[in-house]
C-alpha cells in the first residue's frame, strides 16, 4: 500500500491548536509546523484503509475490566513533598500569579 499524501494543515489550525495547548508557535514557525503535523496525520490516516466492518471497538490492547480499589484513606498528608518543586509557596499554599477573571 502506497503512502497517501494529504494536503498539509493550514496555519490557522496550527495557531488555534497551539493556543489551546498553550504552546508558543511564532508566525514564522507556523508553516513548518503545519507541514509536519500534516505528515503525521497522513501517516495515521493509513488506518482508514483497513476494513473494520463488524468489528467491535476496543479501548485498549488489554481487554480487561477496570481495576477498582476499596474506599480507604491510605495516601496524602505529604504537603512538603507536594510543594517541594513549587516556585513559590505560602503557609502550605501554592502561590501563582493572579488569575482572577
Amino acid at each position, binding site marked *: 500500500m502506497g503512502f497517501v499524501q494529504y494536503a498539509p494543515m493550514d496555519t490557522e489550525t496550527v495557531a488555534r491548536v497551539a493556543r*489551546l495547548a498553550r504552546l508558543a508557535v511564532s508566525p514564522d514557525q507556523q508553516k513548518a509546523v503545519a507541514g509536519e503535523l500534516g505528515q503525521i496525520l497522513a501517516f495515521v490516516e493509513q488506518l482508514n484503509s483497513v476494513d473494520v466492518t463488524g468489528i467491535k471497538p476496543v479501548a485498549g490492547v488489554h481487554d480487561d475490566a477496570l481495576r477498582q480499589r476499596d*474506599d480507604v484513606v491510605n495516601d*496524602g498528608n505529604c504537603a512538603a513533598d507536594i510543594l517541594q518543586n513549587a516556585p513559590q509557596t505560602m503557609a*502550605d499554599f501554592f*502561590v501563582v500569579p493572579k488569575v482572577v477573571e
Partner: protein
Amino acid sequence: MTIIKGRTGEWEMVIGLEVHAQITSHSKLFSGASTTFGADPNHQVSLVDAAFPGMLPVINKQCVVQAVKTGFGLNAHINLESVFDRKNYFYPDLPAGYQISQYQKPIVGKGYLDIDLPDGTSKRIGITRLHLEQDAGKSLHDQSPKDTYVDLNRAGVALMEIVSEPEMTGPEEAAAYVKKLRAILQYIGSCDGNMEEGSMRADVNLSVRRKGEKKLGTRCEIKNVNSIRFIMAAIEYEAQRQIEIVEAGGTIAQETRLWDTTKHETRALRSKEEAHDYRYFPDPDLLPLRLDAAWVEDLRRALPELPDAKKERLMQQYGLKAYDATTLVADQAAADFFEAVAKGRDGKLAANWVTVELFGALNKLGREISHSPISATQLSELVGLIEDNTISGRIAKDVFEVMLETGQNPAAIVQEKGWQQMTDMGAIDAAIDAILAQHADKVAEYKSGKDKLFGFFVGQVMKATGGKANPAALNDLLKKKLS
C-alpha cells in the same frame, strides 16, 4: 409557568440545570487521599492528585456504588459499560491540565424526577445523564493583591454531574428541582447536600422566548451558583437581562456568566472568542468501567425508601395531608423525627406539633432538627398528654415553651407547675357557680337572649381555673346551668 411581561409582549424562559454533587466517600475518586472538609492546605493531596509524573489513577469502588444508587434514585438507566475521558483545559487548580470525566459514555443515562410545586401539584423533569468526574482544587484570589493561592485538597474528590433536560420554566421550578434532587441524594447517602460547604453546586442554563414560541432562544450558562436562593435570584436577573437585550433589537451571545453574590447580577465570565474546546479523548490510563448486571441489581434492591414513596406512606399510614407529608419528607431527619413522635399517637396531631410548633421554634433558634432542644420522645410524650386529656392544647403550648428553655420532660413540667387539666367535675362545677354568682346581671342578660355572653362565661371560668378546666366538660356543664 412563569410569564414575564416585557415592553413588547409576554416572555417565557427555558431552564436546564447541571448539578455537581460531591460524592460521600472516605477517599478520592482515583487516589487514597482523604476527602474530609476543612483540612490544612495541601494536606489531603496524594502525588496522583497533584499529577506528578508517572502516577496512575485507580478508581474508588465506593464512588461507583454511589453513582449507581443515585442513578436508581433518579429512575435512570444504568450503563453497564462507561468510559472515562480527559477534558483538557488550563487552570492553576487543575494540576494535570485535564479533568478525568465521562463524555460520550456516562455511567448513568436517561431518567427523571418529580418535583413538588408550591401550589401542591407536581411536575416530571427529565434527567439527561449522570456522570462521574474529578473535582478541581481551590483558588483563593483574596489573600494577596498580586497572587492567587492554590489548595489542592479538593482536587480529585469524586463528583456526580447530574444534567437535567431543559424542562423548567421559572425560578420556583428550578428551586423545587434542586430541593427534590438534594432530598434524593441525602436519602441515598451519596451526597450530604451541604450547599454552604460546596457539596452541591449548580450551573444554570437559561434562554428566553416569546410566549407560545416553539423555537429555543440562545442560552447562557451561569456557573457555580451555590444556594437555592441564589439560583432563583440569578434566574430572575438573567431572564430580565436577556429580554431587555432582545426587546432593544439586540441578540444574545452564547456565553458563560457568573452570579455576583454581592451585586446581585450575572456578568460575563469567558469571552466568546475563548469558546470551549476541551478536546475530549478517552483517558489511556483507564480501561472502560464494566459493571456486573447482578451486582447492579443487588444495589437496586438495597435502596432505602425514597422521598416520593415515603410521602405516599406517611399519607396512608398516618392520614397526613399532602402538604404536611411533603414538608416532612423534604428532610430525611425531619421525617424520621416525625415517625418517632407519631409512634402510638394520632398522626395528624403529631404532624401538626412537628411542622408548626417545632419547626417554628427551630427556625427562631436557627437550628437544624438534628440539634433540636426537644427530643422526639419528649414531643411524643407531650402529644400523649394532650390525647389523654391531661392537658389542653392551649396549656400544651406553655409546656412546650418550658421544654424549649429547660429541656425537661413534659409530664414533669405539668406535675411541677400543677397544669393538669381539671377533669374533676365537682371542681369545675364549683368554679362555674362562683362565676355565675359574681355576674348575676350578665346571667340575666344571657337568659333574655344575649347568646354571645356564653363565651364570656367560658373565659371567666378558664381564667379562674388558670386555664386548666377541660374545655369540653366546661362547655357541657355551663350549658346545663344556664338553661
